[in-house]
């Protein structure tokens, strides 16, 4: 039956063509753009990028955010997943509430936290009521980089922990209940069970969560922009500025390449570090 041998190819063909046009092709073009300057192949765009005053700061800020946000998110999501596992009543409701931010965009999350952290916002009103401050204080300004950083970290944790939680809860469902029961029979405490059963068997899910979150975290942009404008430069923000304000798509593409290389490197590191042997999977 030639017909049914051809069928799968006909079915995947549209999506392959689409991905070639809107993924592979722009990818190649981005590389081309980044390595071309004034009509010839050159590293000029990268030199311009590295030479820019905001480059070092944005690179440092982005890495700092990823390094602080990701571990906190994984820890928080693990805690939430364990709590859900113990829950008997109202589990569905709690789960829904905890996953609400899944639908909240990074821009909206930034604006939500702006309403809390602005000078006349709820944080300052609370601090005022407690007698800590006596007039509106500006936390999100250039002069207060630590407070701005903390604000962005809060907004990122608020927004993007939900996706980690969903992946981990899905992973939890794949761990056979018998394992925990057996461990309990042998007298393992809650902590031992967590370390010896939950964590190892959750490794594949942790790996996907880490990859997904890290790639997205290196793309952080709108949260930062909503809270601090350009007071806290990050890599994607710089790419956006070079594109929009400076009309220089070469340097913007150079930033894109840099972000991509970092994302791919992070993905490879996770695949390496959290490798699971096929027979060890649940």
């Amino acid at each position, binding site marked *: 039956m030639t017909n*049914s*041998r051809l*069928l799968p*190819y006909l079915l*995947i063909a*549209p*999506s*392959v063509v*689409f*991905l070639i046009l809107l*993924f592979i092709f*722009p*990818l190649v*073009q*981005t590389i081309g*753009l980044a390595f071309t300057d004034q009509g010839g192949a050159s590293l000029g765009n990268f030199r311009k990028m590295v030479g820019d005053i905001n480059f070092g700061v944005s690179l440092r800020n982005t890495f700092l955010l990823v390094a602080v946000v990701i571990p906190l998110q994984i820890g928080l999501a693990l805690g939430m997943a364990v*709590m859900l596992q113990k829950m008997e009543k109202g589990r569905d409701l*709690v*789960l*829904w*509430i*905890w*996953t*609400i*931010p*899944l*639908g*909240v*965009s990074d*821009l*909206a999350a*930034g*604006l*939500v936290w*702006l*309403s809390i952290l602005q000078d*006349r916002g*709820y944080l300052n009103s609370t601090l*005022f009521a407690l007698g800590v401050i006596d007039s509106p204080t500006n936390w999100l300004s250039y002069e207060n980089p630590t407070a701005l950083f903390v604000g962005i970290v809060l907004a990122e944790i*608020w927004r993007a922990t939900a996706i980690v939680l969903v992946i981990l809860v*899905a*992973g939890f*469902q*794949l761990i056979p209940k018998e394992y925990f029961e057996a461990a309990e029979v042998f007298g393992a405490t809650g902590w031992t069970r967590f370390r010896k059963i939950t964590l190892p068997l959750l490794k*594949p899910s942790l790996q*996907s969560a880490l*990859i997904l979150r890290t*790639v997205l975290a290196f*793309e952080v942009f709108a949260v930062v*922009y*909503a809270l601090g404008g350009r007071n806290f430069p990050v890599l*994607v923000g710089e790419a*956006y500025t070079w*594109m*929009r304000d400076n009309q220089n*798509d070469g340097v*913007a*593409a150079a930033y*894109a390449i840099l972000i991509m290389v970092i*994302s791919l490197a992070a993905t490879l590191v996770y695949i390496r570090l959290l490798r699971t042997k096929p027979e060890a999977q649940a």
Partner: protein
Amino acid sequence: MSTKRFLYLTGVVTLIAWIVVPIYLIAIGAFSGRAGVFRWPKSLWPADASLQAMQVFMQIEGVWNAALNSVIVAALCMLFSVLLGAPAGYALARFSFKGQTAYRLLIVLTRAFPLAILALPLTVNFIRIGLYDTTLGVALVHTALALPFAALVSSSLFMGIPRELEEAAWVFGCSRFQAFVKVVLPLALPGLAATAIFAFVISWNEVFAAAVLTVRERTLTAYLLTVLSESPLHFRFAGGFILIVPSVLFIFAVRKYLFAMWGIANR
């Protein structure tokens, strides 16, 4: 009540508050208008809240058009990702064919790339073919974000529908296509709807590509981003609130599928 139980409940309630309270606060901000935003110190009670503030926001030039564009883009993205992704998912679920691994790799690979950033070179192409600054152009880029997800999720959906049902339909004289439409599709429909809604949310929330690819025909996110620095606070809060509402409702609608989708889609 034991201390342990007390700590546990406190933890759960704190985390619920951690999610819900910020949304409540921006809602007050959105409905309180100018007066509310500048009130000091603020109370947690929505004293200034009125529908008028929201009406004023919706009447600002460009807001309505941007919201409409967002809906159009997200709806197109939803349509494209299901139309392109579901057949691929069906192929992955029902056939073993040469190149299957390569195809899966292509799909998974998209996840290691910051896809939205690839919109940068697309501006040039889009200007050339007339897609720049159109809802269709943005929808295409958003589909590239949602399609890999749609393909993987629908493949797991189809895998969950027994092959025997389809084969029985063939025995009774249905063609492959008829069997699919009459037997498989009705069973897969709720899951496909959930996939579609997820594609909608992905598109509705996307900022970077939408901002780069449009000038006048902005989506709501792109519009808010570009006017952010010059707009008053109550305006920003109203915008943020409007961004949040539909996605939260949609996530509620698909909550049943969320875990099944991610459980398999992340393998």
